[in-house]
C-alpha cells in the first residue's frame, strides 16, 4: 500500500509570530520555517506503517513556494521514499490544496493519506475533511491511534467527550492528533540519504486545478493586550464586583 503524506511549510513553532505592519498577514521574511508539527506526526506514522510492512511506499507532498522542497527533504530524511512539490506562489487555500491533493491521489492511487489535523499557521483544520469529500473516501480525523488490518483501518479519535473508535474501509483519509506518536529525529545517515531521493515538481495548471483564492483576508491583527487586573480585598468584594461590574453572576 502506498501512503501519501502532505507536509506543509509553516513558521517554526518556536518563533513568536508577528503581524505584518500593513495588517495583510503574518511576517515570514527572515523567519525560521519548519514542517507543520502535525504533519511531522503524519510522516512518523507512515514510516512506522512501512516498518511494520503495512506500507510499501511513502510519498511526501508539499504545496507552495519552491522552498517547500526543504520541507519535503525533511520528510525524506525521516523515511519517506520520494517527494512531489506542487510549486505555486499563489496563496493556496484549503479547498485548492484539497483539489490539488485529489489530483495527485488520482494519479498515485494511495491506499491511505495521512494529514496533520491542522496547520499551526492558520489553524484551519479543513484540508483533510475536504479531501475526503472530494475523493469520496472514508475519514478518521484527530487520530490518536491507528491500526491497519487487511482492508480495514481502526482509528481511535480524540473527541470532546473522550475517545471514539471507528473502523474504516480503505482507502481512507486520516488526520493526526498530537498523541498519535512522537516523531523521530532524522538521523545523520538518513539526512545524507535524503539527498539522493527524488522530488518531482509539478504546477497546479498541470494538475488542472484552479487555485484562485475563494476566501479574502480582510485584515490580520494581534490580539489586544491584556489589561492589568485588579486586586480585591475580600471574597465579598469579589462577588460584588462580579455582580455589578463584570455582570457575570
Amino acid at each position, binding site marked *: 500500500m502506498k501512503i501519501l503524506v502532505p507536509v506543509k511549510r509553516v513558521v517554526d513553532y518556536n518563533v513568536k509570530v508577528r503581524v505584518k505592519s500593513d495588517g495583510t498577514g503574518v511576517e515570514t521574511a527572515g523567519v525560521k520555517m519548519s514542517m507543520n508539527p502535525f504533519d511531522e506526526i503524519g510522516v512518523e506514522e507512515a514510516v512506522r506503517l512501512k516498518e511494520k510492512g503495512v506500507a510499501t511506499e511513502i510519498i511526501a507532498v508539499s504545496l507552495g513556494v519552491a522552498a517547500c522542497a526543504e520541507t519535503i527533504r525533511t520528510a525524506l*530524511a525521516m523515511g519517506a521514499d520520494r517527494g512531489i512539490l506542487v510549486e505555486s506562489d499563489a496563496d493556496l487555500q484549503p479547498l485548492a490544496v484539497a483539489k490539488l491533493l485529489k489530483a495527485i491521489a488520482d494519479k498515485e492511487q494511495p491506499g491511505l493519506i495521512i494529514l496533520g489535523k491542522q496547520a499551526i499557521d492558520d489553524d484551519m483544520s479543513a484540508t483533510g475533511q475536504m479531501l475526503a469529500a472530494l475523493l469520496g473516501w472514508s475519514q478518521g480525523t484527530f487520530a490518536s491511534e491507528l491500526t491497519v488490518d487487511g482492508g480495514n483501518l481502526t482509528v481511535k479519535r480524540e473527541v470532546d467527550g473522550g475517545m471514539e473508535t471507528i473502523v474504516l474501509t480503505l482507502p481512507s483519509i486520516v488526520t493526526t492528533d498530537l498523541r498519535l506518536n512522537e516523531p523521530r529525529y532524522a538521523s545523520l545517515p538518513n539526512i545524507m540519504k*535524503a539527498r539522493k531521493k527524488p522530488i518531482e515538481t509539478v504546477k497546479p495548471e498541470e494538475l488542472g486545478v484552479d487555485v484562485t483564492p475563494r476566501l479574502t483576508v480582510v485584515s490580520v491583527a494581534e490580539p489586544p493586550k491584556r489589561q492589568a487586573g485588579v486586586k480585591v480585598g475580600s471574597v465579598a468584594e469579589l462577588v460584588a464586583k462580579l455582580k455589578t461590574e463584570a455582570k457575570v453572576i
Partner: protein
Amino acid sequence: MFELSEEHRMLKDLVAKFIDQELIPLERSAIAREARGEAVGLPPEEEGPLLEKCKELGLWALDVPEELGGANLPNVALMAMNEELGRTCVPFTFPPDSPNLHMLMAVANEDQKRRYLAPYAAGETKSAIAISEPGAGGDPAGMLTRAVRDGDDWVINGRKIWISRVSSADFLIVMARTGEGKRADGVTAFLVDRGTPGLIVEREIKMLGGQRTYELVFDNCRVPASQMLGKEGKGFAPMQLRLTVRRLQMGAWCTGMAVRALDMLCEHATQRVTFGQRLADRQAIQWWITDAATRIHACRLMVMDAAAKQDKGMDVRTEASMIKVFATEMAADVIDHAMQAFGAMGVTKELPLQIMAAKVRAMRVYEGPSEVHRATIARRIIDARK
C-alpha cells in the same frame, strides 16, 4: 552571502534538537556537581545513554573518512554543528574528539592506523595529548621532556602539566624532544598506552568551571620504537595542525555559548522590571544586546570563512589565531553582561552562566593564550611587508 547547504542545515537542526532534548536537561545535575566542588564532566550513567543516542542518530565519527566508517563531513558542517554544542554548559563532544583524530590521520603509519586510528575513529577508545610542561605552556617549543633511543625502544623522561582528558584516555600522544634539534626542530610524538610502566599520573588539578587537568611524570617510561608517531624530530608541525582544528572548534563553541547567554539575557530583560521599567527598555542593556548580536554574527562568519577555506585545503593558521582571540573574548563579554543583567541570580551557582564564564575564562588561556596569538598574528602581518 554565506549559506549552509540544505543538507548541512538539516544536520545543524538535528544537533540543535539533540542539545535541547538530551543535553540541556542534564545541565541541572552538571551545575549541582560543579557547585559541590566535583568535576562537571558527565558520569558514566549519564554519558552511556547519550553515547547510545549519538550512535543511533549517526552523530558519531563526523569528521572521520568514509573508509574508516565515518561521515566525512566538511568543516563548514562540523562548525555549524559545534556551534550548537556550545549552547549547553554540559561538557560533551561527539566522539571521537577531533584534534587527535586529525593528527593520527596525518602521520600514523599503517600499523598505527590499525592499532590506534581505527578503534579511535570508531569511538572505541579515547585519547589525550601531552604537550605543556611546567616551563613550556604557551611556548611549547621550549619543552624539556626528552626521549632517548635505547636499542629497539625509546625511553621518555620528563614532566607534563595541564593535560586534559587523562582520566578517560586509553592512550596518550606524548610530545618529547629527541636528538640535537633546538626549539620546534627535534620534537617527536609518541603513542603511550595507559598503564605503561614509568607513566605516572602525578596529580589531578582542579580547574575553573569544574574542569580537571593532570600533571604527568615520565620516569624512564619505555616504549617500543613502533610507538613513535610520524617522523623523528618532525612532530611539531602535525601537532600545530591538530591545534588549528581545535581553535576553529573553540570559535564555534564560543559562538554557541554567546548565543545562549544572549538568549538568557533577552529573556530576562523583557521580564525583569526595576524602577518601573523593563531592563529591555534601558539603554545600557540594549547596547549589550546589540554588541552581543553584532559580535556573534561576526564570530560566526569568521569561523565559517575559515572552515570554508580549510575545506579548500588552504592554510588557515592566521585565521585560526584571530578566531581564538576574538571568539573567546567576545563570549567572555557576552556572558559577563548576561550575568550582570541577572543581578544576584547571575552570580549564583544555580545558573549555567557561571560555568560558561569559567569555561570561557579558561579558553582564553588554553590552546595558546590570547597574547601569544596576538603576537603571532602581528608578526605574520609585519613579516608579509618585508
